[in-house]
């Protein structure tokens, strides 16, 4: 049941990985349990450190919006994305056009090759 999957170049053994995962998990949880718990609950000591300011109540103000996640990746590849988003015009005839061009390209080259 718990056999190995041979991929011709090596093998993948799920049970070995899971065994390793539990050992690592055990060690991590032990390390975590060494933390100090003598802080006074309810006081400022268990509030998040917001560089001294009052932590805003509504989560809205301190969440990073999804559209700005990976903005560096997006800005770095700006020319690539301008081209890629340019292709996705969303016009129905363009979509059919790409399809017809692909089939035409395939047809021409298969008759040549």
């Amino acid at each position, binding site marked *: 049941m718990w056999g190995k999957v041979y991929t011709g170049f090596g093998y993948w053994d799920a049970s070995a990985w899971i065994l390793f995962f539990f050992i690592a998990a055990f060690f991590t949880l032990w390390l975590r349990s060494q933390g100090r718990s003598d802080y006074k609950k309810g006081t400022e000591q268990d509030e998040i450190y917001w560089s001294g300011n009052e932590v805003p109540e509504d989560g809205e103000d301190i969440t990073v919006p999804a559209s700005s996640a990976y903005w560096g990746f997006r800005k770095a590849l700006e020319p690539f994305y301008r081209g890629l*988003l340019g292709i*996705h*015009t*969303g*016009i*129905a*005839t363009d979509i*059919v*056009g790409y399809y*017809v061009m692909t089939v035409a390209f395939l047809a021409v080259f298969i008759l040549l090759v």
Partner: protein
Amino acid sequence: MIGNAPFFAVGVLFLMGLLGIFMTKNLIKIAIAVTILGSSVNIFLVALGYRTGGTIPVHFLAGEGTTMVMPTPQAMTLTAIVIALATTALLLSLIMLVWRHYGTIDVDEIRRLRG
């Protein structure tokens, strides 16, 4: 050469249908072009089954002993026509709904879903 005249007709009609989709901006004309495409394929199927001098492939109508055209492509064409009917009806009702929501049936303006 005259034998495959219908196939030239199919080729011309197919290209007309295909170009019709890209030449126009009006959705209804695009639906019409798709129907032309469908009918060109139907002609192609019927033309495939033709045997020179063949008659209608129905025994009691054509009588015995006469050469008959191939019945299978005609069966395929019947089904293809029925399917083209269903798809065209659906396309036109979608165009009607697009008109109701977008107020336009110009293909370049219907692109809220892009990128």
